[in-house]
């Protein structure tokens, strides 16, 4: 029922084709997963994509249309999403307004909220995993690093989330982190949408720690109890947190409520960081301008 008309990309474990669902004429993307590639059977990223996308149905999460085996390859049929937020941010010929930014962040937070209320952590939120549908809807994609919220005593790997969007607790090697890591990533994306350049572009993992704390201040036990117990805490430089004035200068187009939201999403202590519900209920989404309707977005 599916055609593969054009190769759209090739990753480590999959080749992506654009095609059509014949019975409906719907444009689709087929992610063909090479099964021979992974000596341990089905690749973990593919397994996670299938496991979680089968359970999530939300306008702001990419839809898994079908899954099937064909000539020993696993095929994920996904809805066709021609663009992503990274393309939009980088293409300076595209002008976008504060209302557009508000719309993209609102849709991102709705998608993240749906994952979190199903106790699923995405763990790789970044602009090129936020895809854009022809009708303007933003959809969270690439669940290759996703996992269920940990059982209480479970140990998680901190080697997740693409570096620039990685939360401080992950930079410190935390093993019992929560969905707060996704909220941090959304905060960085929000900043990038306003600045049109990456907000915390570390050259490597060590530099990432430095870049993060130089921009946002080094956390102390006062605001983040036990942060000094992380093994690599002592090696880091102590920087003061930015003043409100400094934040205003950094995000000149941002309203007070926008600064409130981005500060809430990027609170160092994960325990105090805002969760998806608190973000969605923030004043920023209740003040003018109203978020641009998806179909009117660039």
């Amino acid at each position, binding site marked *: 029922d599916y055609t593969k008309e054009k190769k759209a990309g090739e990753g480590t474990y999959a080749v992506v084709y654009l095609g059509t669902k014949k019975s409906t004429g719907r444009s689709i993307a087929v992610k063909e997963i090479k099964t021979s590639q992974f000596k341990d059977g089905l690749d973990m990223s593919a397994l996670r994509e299938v496991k979680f996308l089968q359970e999530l149905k939300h306008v702001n999460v990419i839809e898994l249309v079908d899954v099937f085996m064909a000539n020993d390859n696993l095929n994920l049929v996904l809805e066709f999403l021609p663009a992503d937020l990274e393309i939009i941010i980088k293409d300076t010929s595209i002008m976008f307004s504060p209302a557009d930014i508000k719309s993209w962040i609102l849709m991102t937070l709705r998608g993240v909220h749906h994952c979190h209320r199903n106790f699923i952590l995405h763990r790789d939120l970044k602009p090129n995993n936020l895809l854009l549908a022809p009708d303007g809807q933003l959809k969270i994609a690439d669940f290759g690093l996703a996992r269920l919220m940990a059982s*209480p005593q479970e140990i998680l790997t901190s080697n997740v989330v693409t570096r620039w969007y990685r939360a401080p607790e992950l930079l410190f090697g935390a093993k019992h982190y929560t969905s707060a890591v996704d909220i941090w990533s959304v905060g960085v994306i929000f900043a990038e949408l306003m600045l049109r350049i990456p907000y915390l572009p570390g050259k490597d993992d060590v530099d990432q720690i430095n870049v993060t704390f130089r921009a946002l201040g080094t956390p102390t036990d006062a605001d983040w109890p036990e942060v000094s117990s992380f093994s690599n805490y002592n090696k880091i430089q102590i920087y003061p947190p930015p003043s409100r004035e400094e934040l205003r200068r950094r995000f000149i187009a941002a309203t007070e409520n926008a600064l409130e939201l981005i500060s809430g999403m990027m609170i160092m202590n994960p325990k105090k960081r805002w969760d998806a519900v608190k973000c969605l209920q923030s004043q920023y989404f209740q003040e003018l301008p109203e978020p641009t309707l998806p179909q009117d977005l660039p």
Partner: protein
Amino acid sequence: DLHKRYELVENEYNDSFIRDLQKKKEYIASGFRADFIYDRMLTEAFM
């Protein structure tokens, strides 16, 4: 379902297992949240 069939009242729960974890340094530093655990268990019970 607007009305969840439970109230999350953290200080009413005597859960020694979770409470012990909350006191561990590595859990505190990681941002471990007992209320997230309770919310998940209660959601699974009342879904």
